[in-house]
């Protein structure tokens, strides 16, 4: 028997309704993350097995309160629902609603229902009903809404099979009636004219196209022109939208009056008690800083063991391959290019996973919204919003998801400032650079007998990152003349225990995205670097002869000559020439051409710094020794002074440079996509670059 075509199902719902939880229950580990064409919003979809050989493809649309979008994420929902001719257009929509706030959830439902796509209403968190004193007349509700209603509890896995059954039923008997007849209650003539524009679209679809200026490809040119005329009278459109909203709520109120009862006396309000603590004027901030400290402590502490383990494994692997393979170009490529390259990415996994774990837990529990509430007034002084706290914290893992997280900030100026300063926060890519430099130049001493001086330096760099982000935000706030209506509303969701499954899946997904996203760049750069370091113009090819025949080298032993050859090779390779070219510019900062090479490659991504130095020094060193990169860097001598290359002044100067400079192509690309112009990423690149140069120069001068 032939397999029937899978049913396409889209999940829609308010944020914090457990929509993603249901998605996880329906699809499990079959989830795939893709991108919507043209935007970088994650498109999550997965397969779901129904009865027999029937299957469904479930898509998790971003959480939204309404299909009238106010953000990029929300506009995805509208676009997915208007493009009726698209191959991914859903056959069925499942609206996920929270039983505790059914009224507001039904508002979104009523909008989707009017699009006349087959629909199911899944009312979530039904296990809470008794405790909250809620009673619901499902039968009447089904009749009133003309929709199959399923009671579920996605966290407790209740009703998941009923959702699957409903999907199968709905595919057979699709009953599509609009719920709210918006037309005659608002302006009969106006909507009658609108309906005449196109016979292929429902009235509500046409109305959405006007209000949102979103004209799908399924329209003919003539239809589009006619619709454009309706958009002329903007104030009328706005007035009707307001009326529409009120009308929908009136209708929902009537339906709920007959079906939904709450016995307030039964509701035990944990929320109020917890809010009192978490938003307290003293304890609120104490708890928040405690949480931050806990996060940083665990990033540094818990991750050292797995990171050392990964580091050692990659060194072993390199050694193993060196022994197993015959000497040659291929072996060099693998041991000096690919293995250190991959190692440079894998080593971040523990730290990134821990950070994502905390962010996921804080969001799941509802605590993050309280932080937004606490911090809004403070952040506003610096031209940002309370919602900027989330990107700034996420920025300590990676600026790319952090810049994407700014989408929840509604005011454009606040959002722009947050985007511009987020790259100053110490992302995990800076961490290996800091770690290696600190261990090289900061003595391993205890401060006041307890705090490690190295740890203190690292903490200071984090504080410096935040401080410079806040200071630049303040300056931008005063300088930027951007027109923007700042409008702020944040939902304060109920407190919840985090679901382990949701948290784990979230961490897995984000870590995977980082490893494969950043990994590709780093691996590619490692290979390119290796090539540039082991090849060169004409003079490079004769280097062996030149060095051996040099009379000054007559009395050197064989191995000393080999070392001379390797370093002469590096100096004359393509990358050596590049490093030499920029050497005069970076000399005031205390750097030589080898560090210059690392700087050049770091402009793709900071973490490449360590890998580059590893590649440079392993190309240079003779092949048999697989000493760690730190040992090699420590042994490096500044030929002009005869002292160590990485002394305190150079180390500090480099630390400051990496703290301030914009060295991440990925972030530049995402900023371009989010701000829709190259102006802002270029401003970041230049502004942060100048700041880094000046600050490093001052640092170097002070310490030397």
């Amino acid at each position, binding site marked *: 028997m032939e397999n029937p075509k899978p049913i396409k199902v889209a999940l829609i719902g308010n944020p914090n309704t457990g929509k993603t939880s249901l998605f996880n229950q329906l699809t499990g580990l079959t989830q795939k993350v893709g991108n919507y064409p043209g935007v970088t919003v994650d498109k999550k979809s997965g397969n779901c097995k129904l009865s027999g050989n029937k299957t469904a493809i479930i898509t998790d649309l971003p959480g939204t309160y309404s299909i009238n979008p106010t953000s990029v994420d929300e506009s995805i929902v509208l676009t997915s629902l208007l493009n009726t001719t698209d191959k991914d257009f859903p056959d069925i929509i499942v609206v996920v609603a929270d039983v505790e706030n059914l009224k507001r959830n039904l508002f979104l439902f009523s909008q989707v229902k009017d699009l006349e796509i087959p629909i199911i209403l899944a009312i979530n968190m039904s296990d809470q009903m008794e405790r909250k004193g809620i009673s619901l007349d499902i039968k009447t509700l089904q009749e009133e809404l003309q929709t199959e209603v399923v009671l579920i509890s996605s966290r407790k896995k209740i009703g998941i099979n009923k959702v699957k059954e409903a999907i199968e039923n709905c595919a057979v008997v699709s009953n599509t009636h609009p719920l709210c007849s918006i037309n005659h209650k608002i302006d009969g003539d106006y909507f009658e004219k609108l309906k005449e524009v196109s016979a292929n679209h429902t009235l509500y679809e046409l109305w959405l196209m006007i209000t949102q200026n979103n004209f799908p490809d399924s329209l003919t040119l003539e239809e589009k022109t006619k619709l454009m005329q309706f958009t002329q009278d903007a104030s009328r459109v706005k007035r009707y939208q307001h009326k529409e909203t009120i009308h929908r709520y009136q209708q929902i109120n009537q339906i709920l009056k007959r079906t939904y009862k709450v016995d307030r006396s039964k509701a035990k309000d944990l929320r109020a008690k917890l809010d009192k603590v978490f938003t*307290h004027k003293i304890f609120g901030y104490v708890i928040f800083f405690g949480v931050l400290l806990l996060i940083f402590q665990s990033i540094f502490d818990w991750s050292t063991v797995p990171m050392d383990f990964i580091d050692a494994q990659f060194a072993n692997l390199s050694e193993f391959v060196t022994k197993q393979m015959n000497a040659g170009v291929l072996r060099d490529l693998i041991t000096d290019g690919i293995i250190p390259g991959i190692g440079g990415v894998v080593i971040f996994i523990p730290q990134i996973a821990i950070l994502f774990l905390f962010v996921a837990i804080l969001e799941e529990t509802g605590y993050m919204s309280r932080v937004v509430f606490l911090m809004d007034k403070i952040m506003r002084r610096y031209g940002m919003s309370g919602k900027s706290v989330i990107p700034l914290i996420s920025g300590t893992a990676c600026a790319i998801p952090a810049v994407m997280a700014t989408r929840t900030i509604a005011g454009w100026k606040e959002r722009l400032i947050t985007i511009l300063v987020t790259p100053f926060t110490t992302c995990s890519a800076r961490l290996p650079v800091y770690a290696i430099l600190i261990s090289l130049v900061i003595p391993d001493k205890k401060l006041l007998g307890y705090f490690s001086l190295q740890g203190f330096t690292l903490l200071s760099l984090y504080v410096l990152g935040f401080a410079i982000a806040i200071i630049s935000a303040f300056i931008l706030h005063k300088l930027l003349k951007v027109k923007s209506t700042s409008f702020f509303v944040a939902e304060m969701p109920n407190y919840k225990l985090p679901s382990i499954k949701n948290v784990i899946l979230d961490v897995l997904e984000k870590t995977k995205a980082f490893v494969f996203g950043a990994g590709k760049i780093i691996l590619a750069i490692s290979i390119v670097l290796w090539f540039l370091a082991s090849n060169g113009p004409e003079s490079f090819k004769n280097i062996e002869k030149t060095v051996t025949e040099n009379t000054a080298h007559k009395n050197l032993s064989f191995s000393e000559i080999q070392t001379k050859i390797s370093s002469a090779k590096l100096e004359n390779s393509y990358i050596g020439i590049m490093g030499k070219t920029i050497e005069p510019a970076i000399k005031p900062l205390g750097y030589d051409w080898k560090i210059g090479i690392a700087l050049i490659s770091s402009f793709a991504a900071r973490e490449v710094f360590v890998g580059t130095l590893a590649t440079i020094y392993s190309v240079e060193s003779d092949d048999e020794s697989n000493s760690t990169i730190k040992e090699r860097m420590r042994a490096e001598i500044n030929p002009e002074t005869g002292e160590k290359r990485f002394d305190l002044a150079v180390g500090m100067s480099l630390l400051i440079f990496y703290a301030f400079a914009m060295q991440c192509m990925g972030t530049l690309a995402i900023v371009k996509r989010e701000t829709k112009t190259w102006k802002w990423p270029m401003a970041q690149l230049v502004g942060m670059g100048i700041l880094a140069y000046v600050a490093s120069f001052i640092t170097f001068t002070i310490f030397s």
Partner: protein
Amino acid sequence: MIKIQTLSTIATLVKGEIGIISEESLDVIPLKLLEMGCLPGVEVELLQVAPLKDPLYICVNGSHLAIRKEMASQIKIIKS
């Protein structure tokens, strides 16, 4: 029973106080806030005020929302 009605805004509520959003506020409430249930004629309760007196944490129509004082002071209410 005589009700004393005074015209005030959400921003003038004290913690724990309840008011009803007045009809004339319709034009100043942004669509997004309307869609979240903040409509004329419904009860609004001030639950918490942030430590620096702003934003305000309100409960309106079953939705728990944080809005800024600036917005709150434009939404007129009737205290009962």
